[in-house]
């Protein structure tokens, strides 16, 4: 009869790490492709780079079925409320990766028409530099996101998303009160946050 050691046969862990282990290895990407980064993204999903190896097998084009928003390209001020709406419609828990310099900071488009980084309107988890980034860089970015997911707390993520819903409710209230279109309201909120020295409206 072999010696039975309980430590060899039983593993103890926290609920957070078990759930996060499942979450980080079953990401469902949703591409928000607006520019050339989306072309690199096609290469990333295709057989040569095979993004499926990293647990993000199923690419979905509906926010109802996905939990990782990949913003691939330039986002203009008029697209900002569209991005916010799509992020709000995604299944929870959800993460955002800003791919390329345009999504991260506005990049070369330092103009009045371009949003200077999508982190002003939606909470971004990982920024991937490059113009456009190579598929390896994007994969590295998602691997960093997986590391981040494995470290975070479940309630922390929940509250993080809840704060965004509060800002969306404020956007809708302002829209009704002032009678403006959605992109005008988001623009006003971004400018207002800028005057206060904040970088984001959520």
């Amino acid at each position, binding site marked *: 009869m072999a010696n039975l050691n309980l430590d060899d046969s039983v593993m103890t862990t926290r609920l957070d790490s078990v759930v996060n282990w499942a979450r980080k290895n079953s990401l469902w990407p949703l591409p928000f492709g607006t520019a050339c980064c989306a072309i690199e993204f096609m290469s990333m999903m295709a057989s040569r780079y095979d993004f499926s190896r990293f647990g993000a097998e199923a690419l979905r084009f509906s926010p109802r079925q996905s939990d990782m928003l990949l913003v691939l390209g330039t986002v203009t001020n008029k697209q900002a*409320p569209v*991005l916010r709406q*799509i992020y*709000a419609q995604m*299944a929870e828990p959800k993460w955002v990766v800003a791919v390329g310099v345009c999504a991260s900071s506005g990049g070369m488009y330092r103009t009045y028409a371009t949003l200077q980084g999508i982190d002003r309107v939606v909470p971004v988890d990982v920024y991937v530099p490059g113009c456009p980034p190579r598929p390896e860089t994007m994969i590295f970015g998602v691997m960093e996101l997986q590391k981040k997911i494995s470290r975070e707390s479940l309630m922390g993520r929940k509250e993080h*998303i809840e704060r965004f*819903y509060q800002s*969306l409710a404020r956007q*809708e209230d302002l829209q009704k009160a002032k009678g403006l279109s959605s992109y005008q309201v988001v623009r006003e909120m971004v400018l207002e946050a800028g005057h206060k020295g904040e970088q984001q409206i959520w």
Partner: protein
Amino acid sequence: MTSSPSPFLPVLLLFLIALGVGAAILVVSGRILPGLMKPDNPQRAKLTPYECGVPPLQEGARHRYSVKFYLVAMLFILFDVETAFLLPWAVQYKAHLWTFWAMLSFLATLLVGYVYAWGKGALDWER
């Protein structure tokens, strides 16, 4: 013989157990477990239809549209099939008199229908 139970009683029991197990699986996996495990956070944005992030112009897909589209679709299919027949015929055409007249009779049949549709005013959008 009248007092002993029917030999088919185990079959009935098996049937009832199968029904019970099936119902239990459906209830547990469809109602109880999702209620315990799934994140449930309904929001106004989530409950609105997905129109690529733009506010939807009409609620849902159950709105009515004109019957004129039906007529146009029918005529399109008819003459689309005509073209689909015409193309392989033209590629394989070897200048035999018989194939020429066969195709011409097919086209003549469709021409009658075309003239009829035109005469009935099916091609006029505004009437």
